Each structure stands twice: as C-alpha cells, then as structure tokens.
C-alpha cells in the first residue's frame, strides 16, 4: 500500500476540559479531492488548524506523506508540501495583486532569505506570477492593491496564493463562504482546474459544491468522524442523515 498524502491517527484536541476533536482517523490518498462536512461547531476548522500546525494537538498524529508533523511550525509544514487557505480571507491587503502572488512563489522557487538579488530582475518569478494570475483570472487587476478587490476576487486571489507555492496537498477552508451562486460556480471551476493532480482537502458548507467536487466525503460531528466514503454512500448513510445531512438537504430544496 502506498503512503497516504495525509493521514490522521487518533487525533485529539482539548481546550481545557472541553474536547473539541475526539480521536479522528482519516487517510487521504494522493490526488484525491476530499471534503470534510459537518454541522456548525463540529470542529472542522479546529481540525484544519491542527493539521496545519496552528494549534498543537493534545494527542495523536498527523502524517504528511508518512512524515510526522508534530511540533512543526506552519512555515516548516508549508515547506514540506502542504498549503492552506483560510475561512476569513487572508491576503496581503496593502500589496498589489501581482506582489501577493509573487511573494507566494519566492520560497518554492528557492529564493529563501535572499538579500542580494532583485526580484524585478528574475524572469521566472515574473512569468510564474503572471501565469498564476492568468489561471485565477486576475490579470487585469494586476497592479491594484489586493485589499481593493471584490470579495470573490479576493477569495480567488487567496486560492492563487495557496496553490502558487506548488504544494501537492492543498487545504481550503470554506472557499465559497459568503458568495453568490454565480460566484460560487466560478470558484468551484477554479478549484477544479488549479487542483488538478493534487490532493485537495476542503471544509465546505455548500452541499452543491461538496457533491460536485469531492471524490470522498467525511462527516464530522462533535469532534468525531461518523462516516467517510464516496458521496453517494455518504448521502445514503442513515447515521449521516440523522445527524446532519437530512436537514441540510431538505433545507436546500
């Protein structure tokens, strides 16, 4: 069996006496698109923050391509090939759109803490950044401060920043939150194309997005995974329907 892109082993997190994540086991394969769903307060964002080293876990392990992430800082995890977006748009608002993307390329292109070469002079950076801008359709916003973009554009930019570094495991936290229908369709298409051939793990509320995009779905309720499987299996699972999905599906119709 090949190693999973991302594997969680009995992952637990408590804040004081409150258990938020209560022993999650999950293996996400290479190039799989995996969605994590669940009602509000189920711990989805906490799970994301545990995986990406924002919080330390209380117990259990997170393995990225078989390597343990325990005690690693976010920047080290990123260097190992995992990149994430945030639920609240998280970009560099005062820098130009182009600059946002270029900065996200610096480390992966090997510039590190370089203070002797000019970024403006290196063609690979400029071209790389322009390619990403093309992919996320923001070429005509190139020189605007990122903070002045519309909400959907900022989300697109954040996805661009997230994928730019060439990480092969991409984690998106509610990429379509707060968007209109047409904006959602646009972002879903964008996610589909830019994560081609990569492992995608996303938290999402919009069931249309989840069932349209995911290869497999995990349902998180009160810090535990009650089901993991292909979309149609999860949809038919009585436990899931009882806990969460039925209500959400009904609400959609």
């Amino acid at each position, binding site marked *: 069996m090949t190693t999973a892109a991302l594997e969680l082993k009995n992952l637990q997190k408590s804040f004081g006496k409150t258990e938020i994540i209560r022993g999650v086991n999950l293996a996400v394969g290479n190039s799989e698109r995996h969605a994590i769903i669940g009602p509000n307060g189920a711990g989805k964002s906490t799970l994301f923050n545990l995986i*990406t080293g924002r919080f330390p876990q209380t117990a259990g392990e997170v393995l990225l391509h078989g390597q343990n992430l325990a005690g690693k*800082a*976010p*920047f080290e995890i*990123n*260097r190992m090939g995992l*990149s*994430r977006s*945030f639920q609240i748009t*998280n*970009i*560099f*608002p*005062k*820098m130009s759109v*182009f*600059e946002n993307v*270029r*900065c*996200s390329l*610096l*480390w*992966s292109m090997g*510039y*590190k*803490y*370089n*203070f*002797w*070469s*000019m*970024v*403006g*002079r290196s*063609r690979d950076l*400029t071209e790389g950044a*322009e390619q990403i801008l093309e992919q996320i359709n923001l*070429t*005509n*916003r*190139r*020189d*605007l401060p990122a903070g002045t973009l*519309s909400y959907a*554009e900022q989300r697109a930019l954040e996805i661009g*920043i*997230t994928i730019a*570094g060439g990480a092969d495991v991409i984690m998106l936290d509610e990429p379509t939150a707060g968007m209109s229908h047409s904006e959602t369709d646009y972002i879903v298409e964008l996610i589909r194309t830019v994560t081609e051939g990569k492992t995608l793990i996303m938290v999402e509320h919009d069931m249309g997005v989840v069932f349209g995009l995911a290869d497999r779905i995990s349902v998180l309720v009160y810090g535990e995974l009650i089901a993991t499987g292909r979309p149609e299996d999860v949809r038919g699972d009585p436990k899931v329907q009882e806990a969460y999905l039925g209500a959400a599906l009904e609400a959609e119709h």
Partner: protein
Amino acid sequence: MSNPMKENQITTDPSKPAQRMRAGSLRIAALPWVIAGLALLVMPFVFNDNSAITIMNQMAITIIFALAYNMLLGQGGMLSFGHAVYAGVGGFACMHVMASTDFFEMLPLPVLPIFGGLFGMGLAMIVGSFSTRSAGTVFAMISLGVGELIAACSVIIVAFFGGEEGISGDRTYGLPFFGIEFLHQIEVYYLIAFWLMVSALLMYLFSRTPIGRMANAVRDNPERAEFLGYSSRWVRYYSFIFSGFFAGIAGGLFAINYEIVTEENLNTASSGVILLVTFLGGVGFFFGPIIGAIAFTLLQTVLSLQTDLWAFYAGVLFLATVMFFPGGLAGLLMMHVPAIKMGKASKLVVPYITTLIPALIGILGLSALVEMTFHVRHSSVGDEEMTVFWTTFDSHDILPWAVAIGVTVVAFAVMRMMLPTLRAAWADANATKANTSNGGAA
C-alpha cells in the same frame, strides 16, 4: 457603454510594454537617483555659506537614519521607540576608532562609517534575536526597554560612553584621503553625501530583494506569510539587522560631522524624533522619510532661529499629519498622481491658490497670537516691546491683538468659503471615465 479599455481606467493591461517594464527592469527607476545625485553635487554651490552646509550635513545624516528607521516602521511594520540606540552606538564606535590615533592614522576617514554600521548591526543582532519574535506591542515595549537600558548604561559604562560629557575626537588625524584632511565643512559634506547616496541606494535595493518583499508581506499578514514557507520572525530579524547597520552608518557620520557624541545621541528623545521625522515624511513610500528629514531639519534649524517655539510648531505639524494626512507629506504628494496622469492636475491650481493663501494667512495670524501670548507670559517685567513678522509693537497693547485676531478670523472664514470649490475641483480632477460611464468594473 463607452470603451472599457480607455487608458485612464485604473486596471492595467499587461500587454503594454511600459507596464511590463515596471516588473522586469530597473532602468526606469534610475532617473530619480541620477537627479538626486546631481542635486547633492551642486547643492553646496547654491547654498554656499558655512551655516547652510552645516544644515545640509545634518539633513543628510537624518535622511539616512530616517530611511533606516523606515525599514522597520514602513517596510516591516515594526514600531520602535528605541532606534536611536543603534545610531548612537555606531557613533560611539566611530569616535573610539578616531580616538585610538595609532589605528586611525592608517585609516582614511571615508571608510570610518562602516565601523559605525557594523557596531549598530552587531547590537541589532543581539537585541533583534529576542525582540523580533513578534511585532506589535511586544516589539515596541522591548525597543523602549532596551533604549532606556542602553541610555542608562551611558552613565554606568563610562569607559565606552564617556559619562555625561560624552566623548569627542578629531577627524583630521586620519590618513589623508587623496590629500583631503577634512578640515573644512565642505569636504565633510561630500563625504556625507557619498554615504547618503550609497546607503539610500542599498536600502532601496534591499526593498526589491526577496527578503525585502517578504518584509512587506509579514507586515501585512504574518500568519499568511508563514503559510508561504517563511518564518515571520526571521524575516523581521533580517530587516532589523539591516536597519541597525544603516542607523549605525548615520551615527558614524554624526560622529565625523560633530566630532562629539553624547548620551543625547542614543536616548529615548532622539528615538522619538526619528519616529516623528519618518512619520511626518510618510511611511508608505520609500522617499517619504527623505522628505520628512528635510522638512524637520529645516524646522529645527531655520525656524528655531526665528522663534523659541519651533518645537511647538513641529508638534502641531506632527499632530496635523497624524490626524489629517496619515500618509505623511509623501502621501500628500502622491495623492496627486492620478490627476497628473490624466492630465487634469491644472484644474486644481486656481482652487489651491484661492484656498491655500487664506489658509496660510490664517496660520501666520494664529502663530502671531501664539508668539504674542508667549511674549506676554515670559518676557521680563517692563519689556513690552516685541517683533513679529518685521513689525515691532507693544505686546500689552490692545491694537496688535485686535489686528492679529481679526486677520486670523477673516482668513480662516475666507478659507472655509473657498473649500467647497476646492473639493469640487478635486472630485472633478480625479473623476475617471470608468467611474462615470462604466459604473466601476466588477
């Protein structure tokens, strides 16, 4: 609607060569540097008396220091209340080199500031190792604490800081540099001007390097920067030690220029002044601190000859900047760029004149009132004669007060009357076709 690709639209077209150049080459950016270099060369011929050269020396040193400070404040988002420490220590280091005559005799004076830079950098490496762990309040408090600590050391470690008198030296003992012994102010001027160009250019280039770009990213959003593979702390640390280096250069030049360095060079008051200078000029643009340093040095030197209250006016100016123009003087200038690019700046000229002249008269009237109040309160008994704006009068008389109040009130009233015209002209000059016909894109 009308043509959406009109060139005055804010969005850019990357297929245009001019816009590609911006990211791809340094050639365009060379022009301001050439102009600045030439200006530095000819300045002593325009203002050729000794006092003017003294002012320009001080200005140039302040520019280097303010640019170094802005590497932290503007570029890196670190608010320091103790940055004079690095300049001061650099100054003391250079003074000690000057004092050890055997060594100094083998050294041409123009290389001396490097010692200041290295000492400033060394201290920044030590302090930065714990202070740059986070930005914000923690960083500011540590900078303040370290500033106080080292200022206190100056009276404790007398061997290095020379106690309250400070230490002094003689710059002319160095190895003659192409026959120049730096006896004259003008020779020192060119030495400082040389270091100003080199430091400013290096600091500008630093901001264009990967680490310089990431300094901006960490300033804007440290957490996101971490998820791009960068440790925010290391990025801040690099900015901090480079800033310390250039602050040290400024301190070294101070030592050369004044031949004395005291506790005043590194105390919290000096740190406060450099924050004020930088903010006044504008932290958002690279050239902001340059304007700030020029404006502040003029206030400090020229205005202080005219009035004892110059610090009061500097304070008011600083307050006004913080409240009304947070972008500083540079931000104020750059506000006009869109209108100039669209060729509509000329629409602003007349409204500016009609508003700013009454405003200026009002401000002068107000300052006359301030001066008169000061005179009434502080002159010795019986000395009732004072001179304001080339007019001599009795400060206890009613008439001068009535005139000053009248002029001030009328001038501000006229300014208020003119303001709507200026506002309308401003809106007109900055209106883009895109705004009016396209409804703004997306």
